[in-house]
Protein backbone atom coordinates (compact mmCIF):
# COMPACT_ATOMS: atom_id res chain seq x y z
CA UNK A 1 0.00 0.00 0.00
CA UNK A 2 0.95 3.57 -0.64
CA UNK A 3 2.01 5.83 2.23
CA UNK A 4 -0.93 8.12 1.42
CA UNK A 5 -3.50 5.38 1.95
CA UNK A 6 -3.40 2.78 4.72
CA UNK A 7 -4.45 -0.85 4.34
CA UNK A 8 -7.95 -0.13 5.62
CA UNK A 9 -8.39 2.73 3.09
CA UNK A 10 -7.73 5.50 5.59
CA UNK A 11 -5.92 8.61 4.33
CA UNK A 12 -2.87 10.34 5.88
CA UNK A 13 -5.03 12.36 8.25
CA UNK A 14 -7.33 9.44 9.07
CA UNK A 15 -10.20 10.47 6.82
CA UNK A 16 -12.20 8.11 4.61
CA UNK A 17 -12.19 8.66 0.83
CA UNK A 18 -15.42 10.69 0.80
CA UNK A 19 -14.86 12.71 3.93
CA UNK A 20 -14.33 16.50 4.16
CA UNK A 21 -11.91 18.04 6.62
CA UNK A 22 -13.61 19.84 9.51
CA UNK A 23 -14.94 23.16 8.29
CA UNK A 24 -15.80 26.16 10.45
CA UNK A 25 -17.25 29.34 8.98
CA UNK A 26 -17.86 32.60 10.81
CA UNK A 27 -19.63 35.63 9.31
CA UNK A 28 -19.04 39.33 9.99
CA UNK A 29 -15.66 39.09 11.73
CA UNK A 30 -14.34 42.46 10.54
CA UNK A 31 -16.05 45.61 11.75
CA UNK A 32 -14.79 47.99 9.10
CA UNK A 33 -15.55 45.83 6.07
CA UNK A 34 -18.97 45.89 4.38
CA UNK A 35 -18.99 42.11 4.54
CA UNK A 36 -16.53 39.59 5.93
CA UNK A 37 -16.04 35.93 6.74
CA UNK A 38 -13.50 33.67 8.40
CA UNK A 39 -13.09 30.06 7.38
CA UNK A 40 -11.17 27.17 8.83
CA UNK A 41 -11.00 24.40 6.26
CA UNK A 42 -8.96 21.72 7.96
CA UNK A 43 -5.70 23.50 8.73
CA UNK A 44 -6.44 26.36 6.30
CA UNK A 45 -7.26 29.60 8.06
CA UNK A 46 -8.54 32.38 5.81
CA UNK A 47 -10.09 35.81 6.36
CA UNK A 48 -12.10 37.44 3.59
CA UNK A 49 -13.17 41.08 3.47
CA UNK A 50 -15.59 42.62 0.97
CA UNK A 51 -15.75 46.37 0.37
CA UNK A 52 -18.36 47.89 -1.84
CA UNK A 53 -20.06 48.49 -4.10
CA UNK A 54 -18.21 51.77 -4.00
CA UNK A 55 -17.16 54.45 -6.46
CA UNK A 56 -14.53 53.35 -8.94
CA UNK A 57 -11.14 55.01 -8.51
CA UNK A 58 -9.48 55.83 -10.85
CA UNK A 59 -12.68 56.77 -12.67
CA UNK A 60 -11.61 55.46 -16.08
CA UNK A 61 -11.80 51.92 -14.71
CA UNK A 62 -15.56 52.16 -14.21
CA UNK A 63 -17.83 50.39 -16.67
CA UNK A 64 -21.02 52.21 -17.67
CA UNK A 65 -23.29 49.18 -17.47
CA UNK A 66 -22.03 47.11 -14.56
CA UNK A 67 -19.81 46.90 -11.54
CA UNK A 68 -16.23 45.61 -11.62
CA UNK A 69 -15.28 42.77 -9.33
CA UNK A 70 -11.71 42.91 -8.08
CA UNK A 71 -10.30 39.95 -6.17
CA UNK A 72 -7.00 39.65 -4.36
CA UNK A 73 -5.86 36.28 -3.07
CA UNK A 74 -2.87 36.80 -0.84
CA UNK A 75 -0.85 34.50 1.39
CA UNK A 76 0.68 35.91 4.54
CA UNK A 77 4.46 35.37 4.84
CA UNK A 78 3.85 33.15 7.90
CA UNK A 79 1.12 31.05 6.29
CA UNK A 80 3.50 28.34 5.06
CA UNK A 81 6.49 26.49 6.56
CA UNK A 82 9.13 28.44 4.65
CA UNK A 83 8.60 32.23 4.75
CA UNK A 84 6.72 33.36 1.68
CA UNK A 85 7.70 36.62 0.00
CA UNK A 86 4.72 38.94 0.57
CA UNK A 87 4.81 40.27 -3.00
CA UNK A 88 2.11 38.71 -5.21
CA UNK A 89 3.56 35.63 -6.88
CA UNK A 90 2.62 34.13 -10.24
CA UNK A 91 0.48 31.59 -8.38
CA UNK A 92 -1.36 34.21 -6.33
CA UNK A 93 -2.11 36.32 -9.41
CA UNK A 94 -3.57 33.27 -11.12
CA UNK A 95 -5.67 32.30 -8.11
CA UNK A 96 -6.97 35.88 -7.84
CA UNK A 97 -8.09 35.62 -11.46
CA UNK A 98 -9.80 32.25 -11.17
CA UNK A 99 -11.47 33.33 -7.93
CA UNK A 100 -12.90 36.39 -9.66
CA UNK A 101 -14.13 34.25 -12.52
CA UNK A 102 -15.65 31.75 -10.10
CA UNK A 103 -17.58 34.46 -8.23
CA UNK A 104 -18.66 36.64 -11.18
CA UNK A 105 -21.45 34.36 -12.50
CA UNK A 106 -23.10 34.39 -9.08
CA UNK A 107 -23.16 38.16 -8.70
CA UNK A 108 -25.66 40.47 -10.38
CA UNK A 109 -23.08 43.09 -11.28
CA UNK A 110 -25.47 44.93 -13.62
CA UNK A 111 -27.28 46.20 -10.53
CA UNK A 112 -24.36 48.46 -9.60
CA UNK A 113 -23.09 50.28 -12.71
CA UNK A 114 -19.99 52.48 -12.48
CA UNK A 115 -18.88 50.96 -9.18
CA UNK A 116 -16.31 48.45 -7.94
CA UNK A 117 -16.56 45.58 -5.49
CA UNK A 118 -13.32 44.61 -3.77
CA UNK A 119 -12.75 41.14 -2.37
CA UNK A 120 -9.64 40.54 -0.27
CA UNK A 121 -8.75 36.95 0.58
CA UNK A 122 -5.97 36.69 3.16
CA UNK A 123 -4.58 33.25 3.84
CA UNK A 124 -3.27 33.14 7.42
CA UNK A 125 -2.42 29.45 7.38
CA UNK A 126 -2.32 27.23 4.35
CA UNK A 127 -2.81 23.49 3.96
CA UNK A 128 -3.85 22.72 0.39
CA UNK A 129 -7.21 23.57 -1.12
CA UNK A 130 -6.95 27.18 -0.02
CA UNK A 131 -8.40 28.50 -3.26
CA UNK A 132 -11.58 26.50 -2.66
CA UNK A 133 -11.75 27.66 0.94
CA UNK A 134 -11.14 31.24 -0.23
CA UNK A 135 -13.97 31.11 -2.79
CA UNK A 136 -16.31 29.55 -0.23
CA UNK A 137 -15.57 32.28 2.33
CA UNK A 138 -15.67 35.05 -0.29
CA UNK A 139 -19.16 34.00 -1.31
CA UNK A 140 -20.32 34.15 2.34
CA UNK A 141 -18.69 37.58 2.76
CA UNK A 142 -20.40 38.87 -0.40
CA UNK A 143 -23.77 37.72 0.94
CA UNK A 144 -22.92 39.43 4.24
CA UNK A 145 -22.12 42.64 2.34
CA UNK A 146 -25.64 42.56 0.89
CA UNK A 147 -24.64 42.42 -2.75
CA UNK A 148 -27.30 41.04 -5.10
CA UNK A 149 -26.46 37.44 -5.97
CA UNK A 150 -28.08 34.86 -8.21
CA UNK A 151 -26.73 32.12 -6.00
CA UNK A 152 -24.05 31.30 -3.46
CA UNK A 153 -20.77 29.73 -4.61
CA UNK A 154 -19.47 26.68 -2.79
CA UNK A 155 -16.09 25.20 -3.66
CA UNK A 156 -14.38 21.94 -2.90
CA UNK A 157 -11.63 19.85 -4.45
CA UNK A 158 -11.47 16.18 -5.31
CA UNK A 159 -8.56 14.22 -6.71
CA UNK A 160 -6.77 10.94 -7.12
CA UNK A 161 -4.58 9.61 -4.34
CA UNK A 162 -2.93 6.18 -4.33
CA UNK A 163 -5.02 5.19 -7.34
CA UNK A 164 -8.29 6.11 -5.74
CA UNK A 165 -10.65 9.07 -6.26
CA UNK A 166 -10.95 10.96 -2.97
CA UNK A 167 -12.67 14.11 -1.72
CA UNK A 168 -10.99 17.28 -0.40
CA UNK A 169 -7.27 16.88 -1.05
CA UNK A 170 -4.96 18.25 1.64
CA UNK A 171 -1.45 19.63 1.17
CA UNK A 172 0.37 16.30 1.48
CA UNK A 173 -2.02 14.53 -0.88
CA UNK A 174 -1.77 17.42 -3.32
CA UNK A 175 2.02 17.17 -3.48
CA UNK A 176 2.34 13.37 -3.50
CA UNK A 177 -0.98 12.37 -5.09
CA UNK A 178 -1.77 11.82 -8.74
CA UNK A 179 -4.43 14.47 -9.41
CA UNK A 180 -6.09 17.50 -7.84
CA UNK A 181 -9.32 19.01 -9.16
CA UNK A 182 -10.77 22.14 -7.52
CA UNK A 183 -14.41 22.80 -8.41
CA UNK A 184 -16.67 25.77 -7.58
CA UNK A 185 -20.38 25.15 -7.87
CA UNK A 186 -23.55 27.26 -7.79
CA UNK A 187 -25.75 24.91 -5.76
CA UNK A 188 -29.22 26.20 -6.66
CA UNK A 189 -28.55 26.94 -10.31
CA UNK A 190 -26.51 23.74 -10.63
CA UNK A 191 -23.73 25.45 -12.56
CA UNK A 192 -19.97 24.99 -12.37
CA UNK A 193 -18.00 28.23 -12.17
CA UNK A 194 -14.50 26.86 -11.58
CA UNK A 195 -12.94 23.66 -12.83
CA UNK A 196 -9.22 23.11 -12.76
CA UNK A 197 -7.28 19.88 -13.00
CA UNK A 198 -3.70 19.24 -12.11
CA UNK A 199 -2.71 15.66 -12.97
CA UNK A 200 -3.94 12.88 -15.19
CA UNK A 201 -7.33 11.15 -15.08
CA UNK A 202 -9.09 8.78 -17.45
CA UNK A 203 -12.51 9.78 -18.79
CA UNK A 204 -14.31 7.64 -16.21
CA UNK A 205 -12.10 8.84 -13.38
CA UNK A 206 -12.76 12.42 -14.44
CA UNK A 207 -16.52 11.90 -14.26
CA UNK A 208 -16.28 10.22 -10.88
CA UNK A 209 -13.98 12.93 -9.58
CA UNK A 210 -16.26 15.74 -10.78
CA UNK A 211 -19.34 14.14 -9.23
CA UNK A 212 -17.52 13.65 -5.95
CA UNK A 213 -16.31 17.27 -5.95
CA UNK A 214 -19.86 18.50 -6.56
CA UNK A 215 -21.09 16.36 -3.65
CA UNK A 216 -18.37 18.00 -1.56
CA UNK A 217 -19.54 21.45 -2.72
CA UNK A 218 -23.06 20.63 -1.57
CA UNK A 219 -21.74 19.71 1.88
CA UNK A 220 -19.78 22.98 1.98
CA UNK A 221 -22.91 24.88 0.87
CA UNK A 222 -24.78 23.44 3.84
CA UNK A 223 -22.12 24.83 6.17
CA UNK A 224 -22.24 28.24 4.44
CA UNK A 225 -25.99 28.33 4.99
CA UNK A 226 -25.65 27.41 8.65
CA UNK A 227 -23.05 30.15 9.19
CA UNK A 228 -25.20 32.86 7.55
CA UNK A 229 -28.36 31.66 9.32
CA UNK A 230 -26.51 31.79 12.64
CA UNK A 231 -25.39 35.35 12.05
CA UNK A 232 -28.68 36.77 10.81
CA UNK A 233 -31.45 34.73 12.38
CA UNK A 234 -30.15 33.09 15.56
CA UNK A 235 -31.07 35.85 18.02
CA UNK A 236 -34.68 35.68 16.90
CA UNK A 237 -36.51 35.90 20.24
CA UNK A 238 -40.14 35.43 19.40
CA UNK A 239 -41.96 34.82 16.15
Amino acid sequence: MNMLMSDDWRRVDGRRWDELRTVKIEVGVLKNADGSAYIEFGKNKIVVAVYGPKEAHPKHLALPDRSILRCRYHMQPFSVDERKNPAPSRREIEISKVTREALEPALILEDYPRTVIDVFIEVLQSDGGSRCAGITAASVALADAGINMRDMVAACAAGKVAGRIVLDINDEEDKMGEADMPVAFLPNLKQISLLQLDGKLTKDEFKECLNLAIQGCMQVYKLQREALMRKYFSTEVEA
Partner: protein
Amino acid sequence: MREFRKYVLPGDVIVEDNPHIKPLANVIKIDNRIHATRVGIAEVTQNGVKVIPLSGIYIPRVGDLVIGKIIDYSSLAWVVDINSCFLGHLLAQDVFGKEFTPSRDDLTSKFNLGDVIACRIVNFDRTRDPLLTVADKDLGKINNGEIVKISPSKVPRLIGKRGSMIQMIEQLTKCKIIVGQNGVLVVSDSSKEAINMAVRAIMLIEEEAHTSNLTQRVKDMLGGSIA
Protein backbone atom coordinates in the same frame (compact mmCIF):
# COMPACT_ATOMS: atom_id res chain seq x y z
CA MET B 1 -52.68 31.37 -3.17
CA ARG B 2 -50.87 30.79 0.12
CA GLU B 3 -49.20 33.84 1.65
CA PHE B 4 -46.13 33.31 3.80
CA ARG B 5 -42.84 34.72 5.12
CA LYS B 6 -39.56 32.91 5.48
CA TYR B 7 -35.86 33.52 6.02
CA VAL B 8 -33.83 33.33 2.85
CA LEU B 9 -30.22 33.47 1.68
CA PRO B 10 -29.04 34.38 -1.84
CA GLY B 11 -30.01 31.69 -4.33
CA ASP B 12 -32.83 30.19 -2.27
CA VAL B 13 -35.86 29.23 -4.32
CA ILE B 14 -38.89 31.04 -2.90
CA VAL B 15 -41.55 30.13 -5.46
CA GLU B 16 -41.49 27.45 -8.13
CA ASP B 17 -43.78 26.83 -11.12
CA ASN B 18 -46.22 29.65 -10.43
CA PRO B 19 -46.43 32.05 -13.38
CA HIS B 20 -49.01 34.24 -11.59
CA ILE B 21 -46.64 35.46 -8.90
CA LYS B 22 -44.66 38.56 -9.80
CA PRO B 23 -41.05 39.06 -8.77
CA LEU B 24 -40.90 42.42 -6.95
CA ALA B 25 -37.76 43.43 -5.03
CA ASN B 26 -34.48 41.62 -4.33
CA VAL B 27 -35.54 38.52 -6.20
CA ILE B 28 -34.63 37.18 -9.62
CA LYS B 29 -36.63 34.97 -11.96
CA ILE B 30 -34.58 32.23 -13.57
CA ASP B 31 -36.53 29.77 -15.75
CA ASN B 32 -39.73 29.19 -13.76
CA ARG B 33 -38.25 29.68 -10.32
CA ILE B 34 -37.97 32.84 -8.24
CA HIS B 35 -34.69 33.04 -6.31
CA ALA B 36 -33.79 35.41 -3.48
CA THR B 37 -30.79 37.63 -4.18
CA ARG B 38 -30.12 38.85 -0.63
CA VAL B 39 -30.02 37.64 2.94
CA GLY B 40 -33.38 38.61 4.37
CA ILE B 41 -37.02 37.83 4.94
CA ALA B 42 -39.04 36.74 1.92
CA GLU B 43 -42.65 37.86 1.72
CA VAL B 44 -45.04 36.15 -0.63
CA THR B 45 -48.32 38.03 -1.02
CA GLN B 46 -51.09 38.51 -3.60
CA ASN B 47 -49.01 41.21 -5.29
CA GLY B 48 -45.86 39.18 -5.67
CA VAL B 49 -42.65 38.10 -4.00
CA LYS B 50 -40.16 40.38 -2.35
CA VAL B 51 -37.24 40.03 0.02
CA ILE B 52 -36.67 42.53 2.84
CA PRO B 53 -32.88 42.62 3.00
CA LEU B 54 -31.01 42.51 6.33
CA SER B 55 -27.69 43.85 5.07
CA GLY B 56 -26.30 46.01 2.32
CA ILE B 57 -25.39 49.53 1.37
CA TYR B 58 -27.78 52.32 0.43
CA ILE B 59 -29.02 52.46 -3.16
CA PRO B 60 -30.80 55.78 -3.83
CA ARG B 61 -34.49 55.86 -4.68
CA VAL B 62 -36.47 58.80 -6.02
CA GLY B 63 -38.28 60.60 -3.20
CA ASP B 64 -35.99 59.45 -0.38
CA LEU B 65 -34.96 61.94 2.28
CA VAL B 66 -31.21 61.63 2.80
CA ILE B 67 -28.60 63.39 4.90
CA GLY B 68 -25.37 64.14 3.11
CA LYS B 69 -22.14 66.04 3.39
CA ILE B 70 -20.84 68.53 0.83
CA ILE B 71 -17.51 67.15 -0.38
CA ASP B 72 -16.91 69.21 -3.51
CA TYR B 73 -18.40 71.92 -5.68
CA SER B 74 -18.00 73.26 -9.19
CA SER B 75 -19.36 76.50 -10.62
CA LEU B 76 -22.71 74.85 -11.27
CA ALA B 77 -23.34 72.24 -8.59
CA TRP B 78 -22.34 70.77 -5.26
CA VAL B 79 -21.21 67.16 -4.92
CA VAL B 80 -22.73 65.47 -1.90
CA ASP B 81 -21.62 62.29 -0.15
CA ILE B 82 -24.88 60.49 0.58
CA ASN B 83 -23.38 57.34 2.12
CA SER B 84 -23.87 55.36 -1.08
CA CYS B 85 -21.76 54.12 -3.98
CA PHE B 86 -23.14 57.00 -6.02
CA LEU B 87 -22.42 60.68 -5.33
CA GLY B 88 -25.36 63.08 -5.10
CA HIS B 89 -25.45 66.25 -7.19
CA LEU B 90 -27.19 69.35 -5.96
CA LEU B 91 -27.59 71.90 -8.74
CA ALA B 92 -26.91 75.55 -7.90
CA GLN B 93 -30.12 76.47 -9.72
CA ASP B 94 -32.05 74.52 -7.13
CA VAL B 95 -30.74 76.82 -4.38
CA PHE B 96 -30.30 80.19 -6.14
CA GLY B 97 -33.35 79.92 -8.38
CA LYS B 98 -33.73 80.33 -12.13
CA GLU B 99 -31.74 83.58 -12.19
CA PHE B 100 -28.57 81.80 -11.15
CA THR B 101 -25.46 82.92 -13.03
CA PRO B 102 -22.15 81.20 -12.29
CA SER B 103 -20.22 84.46 -12.72
CA ARG B 104 -22.27 86.37 -10.16
CA ASP B 105 -23.33 83.82 -7.54
CA ASP B 106 -20.80 82.18 -5.26
CA LEU B 107 -21.78 78.63 -4.28
CA THR B 108 -19.88 78.77 -1.00
CA SER B 109 -22.16 81.56 0.19
CA LYS B 110 -24.89 78.94 0.64
CA PHE B 111 -23.13 75.64 1.36
CA ASN B 112 -19.45 75.15 2.01
CA LEU B 113 -17.25 72.06 2.09
CA GLY B 114 -18.08 69.90 5.08
CA ASP B 115 -21.60 71.24 5.54
CA VAL B 116 -24.24 68.66 6.37
CA ILE B 117 -27.52 68.97 4.51
CA ALA B 118 -30.88 67.24 4.51
CA CYS B 119 -32.05 66.73 0.95
CA ARG B 120 -34.41 64.73 -1.20
CA ILE B 121 -33.61 62.62 -4.25
CA VAL B 122 -35.49 63.96 -7.28
CA ASN B 123 -34.03 61.83 -10.02
CA PHE B 124 -32.02 58.64 -10.20
CA ASP B 125 -31.86 55.76 -12.64
CA ARG B 126 -28.44 54.16 -12.03
CA THR B 127 -27.12 55.37 -15.39
CA ARG B 128 -26.44 58.79 -13.85
CA ASP B 129 -25.66 60.04 -10.40
CA PRO B 130 -28.64 60.93 -8.20
CA LEU B 131 -29.95 64.49 -8.46
CA LEU B 132 -30.81 66.16 -5.16
CA THR B 133 -33.01 69.04 -4.06
CA VAL B 134 -33.25 71.15 -0.93
CA ALA B 135 -36.31 73.05 -2.12
CA ASP B 136 -38.84 71.80 0.38
CA LYS B 137 -39.64 72.48 3.98
CA ASP B 138 -37.34 70.87 6.56
CA LEU B 139 -34.63 70.49 3.92
CA GLY B 140 -31.34 72.36 3.76
CA LYS B 141 -28.33 72.93 5.95
CA ILE B 142 -28.22 71.28 9.36
CA ASN B 143 -26.44 73.53 11.84
CA ASN B 144 -26.36 71.49 15.02
CA GLY B 145 -27.02 68.04 16.39
CA GLU B 146 -25.38 64.68 16.79
CA ILE B 147 -24.79 62.64 13.63
CA VAL B 148 -25.44 58.92 13.98
CA LYS B 149 -24.78 56.36 11.26
CA ILE B 150 -26.66 53.08 11.14
CA SER B 151 -26.95 50.34 8.54
CA PRO B 152 -29.35 51.57 5.82
CA SER B 153 -31.15 48.22 5.86
CA LYS B 154 -32.22 48.90 9.47
CA VAL B 155 -33.82 52.28 8.76
CA PRO B 156 -37.36 50.93 8.21
CA ARG B 157 -37.17 49.19 11.60
CA LEU B 158 -36.04 52.40 13.27
CA ILE B 159 -38.96 54.29 11.79
CA GLY B 160 -41.42 51.54 12.70
CA LYS B 161 -44.98 51.11 11.51
CA ARG B 162 -46.19 54.55 10.36
CA GLY B 163 -43.34 56.15 12.27
CA SER B 164 -44.31 54.62 15.63
CA MET B 165 -40.81 53.75 16.83
CA ILE B 166 -39.12 57.04 15.95
CA GLN B 167 -42.03 59.09 17.30
CA MET B 168 -41.80 57.22 20.58
CA ILE B 169 -38.08 58.00 20.94
CA GLU B 170 -38.72 61.65 20.07
CA GLN B 171 -41.49 61.93 22.64
CA LEU B 172 -39.63 60.18 25.44
CA THR B 173 -36.32 62.02 24.97
CA LYS B 174 -37.79 65.33 23.70
CA CYS B 175 -35.22 65.24 20.88
CA LYS B 176 -35.75 66.05 17.24
CA ILE B 177 -34.53 63.25 14.99
CA ILE B 178 -34.07 63.60 11.25
CA VAL B 179 -33.84 60.17 9.66
CA GLY B 180 -32.13 59.87 6.31
CA GLN B 181 -33.06 56.77 4.30
CA ASN B 182 -29.33 56.41 3.65
CA GLY B 183 -28.73 55.45 7.29
CA VAL B 184 -27.50 58.85 8.47
CA LEU B 185 -29.44 60.47 11.33
CA VAL B 186 -29.24 63.78 13.10
CA VAL B 187 -30.39 64.01 16.71
CA SER B 188 -30.81 67.57 18.00
CA ASP B 189 -32.80 70.12 19.98
CA SER B 190 -32.36 68.79 23.49
CA SER B 191 -29.95 68.48 26.39
CA LYS B 192 -26.75 66.47 25.97
CA GLU B 193 -28.04 63.69 28.25
CA ALA B 194 -31.27 63.35 26.30
CA ILE B 195 -29.39 63.24 23.01
CA ASN B 196 -27.12 60.51 24.41
CA MET B 197 -30.17 58.52 25.51
CA ALA B 198 -31.73 58.82 22.05
CA VAL B 199 -28.46 57.72 20.43
CA ARG B 200 -28.29 54.70 22.72
CA ALA B 201 -31.87 53.78 21.84
CA ILE B 202 -31.02 54.04 18.13
CA MET B 203 -27.98 51.80 18.63
CA LEU B 204 -30.13 49.26 20.47
CA ILE B 205 -32.57 49.19 17.57
CA GLU B 206 -29.74 48.73 15.09
CA GLU B 207 -28.28 45.80 17.01
CA GLU B 208 -31.57 44.07 17.63
CA ALA B 209 -33.47 45.11 14.51
CA HIS B 210 -34.55 41.58 13.64
CA THR B 211 -36.07 40.75 17.04
CA SER B 212 -39.68 41.30 17.97
CA ASN B 213 -41.12 43.20 20.91
CA LEU B 214 -38.37 45.74 20.38
CA THR B 215 -40.64 48.76 20.87
CA GLN B 216 -41.34 47.67 24.44
CA ARG B 217 -37.66 47.18 25.24
CA VAL B 218 -36.75 50.59 23.84
CA LYS B 219 -39.59 52.09 25.87
CA ASP B 220 -38.33 50.39 29.05
CA MET B 221 -34.80 51.61 28.40
CA LEU B 222 -35.86 55.21 27.86
CA GLY B 223 -38.60 55.22 30.47
CA GLY B 224 -36.21 53.96 33.14
CA SER B 225 -33.66 56.69 32.71
CA ILE B 226 -35.64 59.84 32.04
CA ALA B 227 -37.98 60.77 34.81
